[in-house]
């Protein structure tokens, strides 16, 4: 799994899950975001905001 950070035009922060181009919000109750945090805790780094 790979991720990329993204800031929208409205200023809302997301992380894009590159496998399906899904926009994951920075919401601690979102289970996809929880998975992303585990991925980061495991030592991985998302692609930077482009």
């Amino acid at each position, binding site marked *: 799994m790979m991720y990329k950070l993204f800031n*929208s035009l409205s200023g*809302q922060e997301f992380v894009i899950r590159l496998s399906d181009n899904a926009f*994951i919000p920075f919401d601690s109750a979102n289970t996809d975001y929880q998975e992303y945090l585990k991925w980061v805790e495991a030592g991985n780094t998302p692609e930077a905001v482009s």
Partner: protein
Amino acid sequence: MSYGSVAADQITSSVQGYSLGAGNSSLKKNLLINGDMRIDQRNAGASVTPSTGTYTLDRWNAYSSAASKFTVQQNAGSVTPPVGFTNYLGCTSSSAYSVGTSDLFVIYQRIEGFNIADLGWGTANAKTVTLSFQVYSSLTGTFGGSLQNGNGNRSYPFTYSIPVANTWTVINLTIAGDTTGTWFTNNSSGLQVTLSIGAGSTYQGTAGAWAANATYSVSGATSVVGTNGATFYITGVQLEVGSSATGFEYRQYQQELALCQRYYEYGTASFPSRSGDNLYYGSMSYKVTKRATPTFAGVSQTVNSNTVDSFACYQAGSASSNSLFTWTSSAEL
């Protein structure tokens, strides 16, 4: 003037073997959603090969610790559902896999904490619940499952028997509520109901007792994934307050769909080209408020904002026609 009172928590219906209104209510009786397996928004009846947490029919998740060991499909095998039902969730084994110590193959549903708050679990007033369902398998024997809290540090493994192959069997299991542990009563996972089709010893516990761990089955339970082509079908799954199983709570289709859409919704949108910046831009409200800010995916779309109630997104373009696209929004547990 007094009209007297009726003291009863259960009323026998005109249908033999069925009763109404156990516990304190007859509404929201079934704590599970899509227990009759009618709703399949993601796959519309197509087969799914689960990985480590794949939603199949709405609200029903599947976990497969090893790749391609079973498939899940609404009405797999096209057997006749039990009386009163038109759909079932069907698992089919894809190989004769020997389950390893740390393997796990399960079907489960996580119930949102808000919807189990009345159970009082984790307190001295924990209510007893009854899990009931109908099961049909090409295999016979003892099968396993469990109830578990959201933290995965309290679980209650159980067993049930399928005595006759390829026949719908009614299963009723009464479970005393857990008086200890932490049971979330907010929008996170409050309670997980799991049916196992294969679990290694790491995930096996002692049937009929609460324990401070995460277990999903018991030693000696039948392994469906251990037999190539074996089938395991379920429907009419209900978890209710009380010490006896009552008739399945049939909800109207639109009610059940709306309950599912709190966790997953999809649709199509047609957004116009915006003058000035050549972007197809638009916003849309969700039909149902989501459990949490959802994960959004739309073909070729870039999200501008996303909340529990609505989304806005855009796509580069210069044509004067509209951009038509499909989208999904997931706030699953």
